[in-house]
C-alpha cells in the first residue's frame, strides 16, 4: 500500500520537498534541533510525519485535487473496526469522551499527571448537546446530528469512519485521525458514534 502511495506521489511530483525547497530543509533541521537531547525516544517520534502529514504541511492543508484524492484513498484503507463489529456503543460513555480534553501531554513543564483520562475533546471544535454552551466552532455544529441524518447503517458507518480517520473523507482537514493514532480505541469511537446518533442522546433529544 505504502509503496503504491509513494509511487503515485512521485508520479505527481509531490514528494522530495526537502530537496526542492532549501528553506524547508533548513526549517526542518532548526525545528528538530530545538528539543532536549534527553527527551525519551517515544516523545521524539511525535515529531515524525507520515505521508499525509507531510503533504498537508507542504500544501498548507490545501493540496491539489490529485494529491487530495490520493490521500483520501490511502487513509480510507487504514480504518479498522471493533472485533464484535458493532458500531453503536453507549452514548453516555460517548458524552463523557466528548467533554474530556485532557490526555497525551508530555514534556518537563506540565506533563499529564499519572492516570489522566484521554478524551475526544469534541466540544473544543463542535457544538453537540444543547446544554453545553462552551463549544468551539472550528468544526461544524453537530447538534441534532442523528435527528437530521437518522441512524441508518450508512450514516453509522460514515460517522465511525470519519472519527477513525477524518482524512478518508477530507484530506488535510483540521480534525484529528483519532483511530489511526490510537488516540481513541475502536470501542471508544463507537461510544461517540452513539452520542451522535442515538435518539436518546442529548445531542438529539434536547
Amino acid at each position, binding site marked *: 500500500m505504502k509503496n503504491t502511495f509513494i509511487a503515485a506521489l512521485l508520479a505527481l511530483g509531490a514528494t522530495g520537498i526537502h530537496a526542492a525547497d532549501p528553506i524547508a530543509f533548513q526549517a526542518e533541521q532548526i525545528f528538530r534541533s530545538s528539543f532536549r537531547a534527553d527527551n525519551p525516544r517515544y516523545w521524539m517520534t511525535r515529531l515524525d510525519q507520515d505521508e499525509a502529514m507531510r503533504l498537508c504541511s507542504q500544501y498548507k492543508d490545501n493540496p491539489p485535487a490529485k494529491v487530495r484524492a490520493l490521500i483520501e484513498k490511502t487513509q480510507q484503507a487504514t480504518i479498522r473496526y471493533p472485533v464484535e463489529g458493532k458500531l453503536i456503543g453507549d452514548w453516555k460513555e460517548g458524552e463523557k469522551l466528548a467533554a474530556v*480534553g485532557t490526555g497525551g501531554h508530555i514534556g518537563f513543564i506540565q506533563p499529564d499527571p499519572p492516570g489522566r483520562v484521554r478524551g475526544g475533546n469534541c*466540544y*473544543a471544535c463542535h457544538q453537540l448537546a444543547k446544554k453545553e454552551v462552551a463549544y468551539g466552532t472550528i468544526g461544524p455544529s453537530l447538534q441534532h446530528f442523528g435527528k437530521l441524518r437518522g441512524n441508518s447503517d450508512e450514516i453509522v458507518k460514515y460517522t465511525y469512519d470519519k472519527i477513525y480517520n477524518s482524512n478518508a473523507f477530507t484530506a488535510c482537514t483540521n480534525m484529528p485521525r483519532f483511530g489511526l493514532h490510537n488516540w481513541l480505541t475502536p470501542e471508544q469511537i463507537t461510544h461517540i458514534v452513539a452520542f451522535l446518533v442515538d435518539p436518546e442522546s442529548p445531542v438529539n433529544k434536547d
Partner: protein
Amino acid sequence: MNNQRREILKAGGGLGLFGLLAAAGLITPGEARAEWNKAAFDAKTIDETLKALGATAPANSADVQLTAPDIAENGAVVPVGVVSTLAGVEAIAILVEKNPNPLAASFMLPVGTEPSVQTRVKMGQTSDVYALVKAGGKFFIAKKEIKVTLGGCGG
C-alpha cells in the same frame, strides 16, 4: 460616637475579634495577630456558614445586588461585586455554594464606607453565589448562578 461604636461592635459579631477591635479603634492593623472567623470559613454548607456569621434567616432582598458575569471563562478568577441600596450597611459577605467552604470573604464597613465591594473568587464548578448584607442589624441576601466553563485546548 458611642452609638456608632456600639453599632460596629454589633456588626462585628460574626467577624472575629481582630476586625471588631480594629473597628473600635482599640488596635491598629499589624499590632495584634488577627482573629479570623474560623468557624464561618470552615463551614461546609450555606446554612452552617450563615449560622457561624450570626445571620439567621436572612431576607431575600432586591436591594442587594451581586454584580458578576453569568458565565466565567475560567473558575480560578471570577469577578464578583456586591452593592446595596439599603441604609446603614455594616457588613457584606460573599458565599459560593458549591465550593468546599462556601464563605469566600467578609467585610466590615465602618460608618462612611459605601456598601460596594468588588473582589475575585475561585469557583470549582458552576454554582449559586450569594451576597449577604447586614444593615440596621438585620441580614439580607441575594443570589445569582455563575456558570464556570471549560476552556481552550483542554489542560
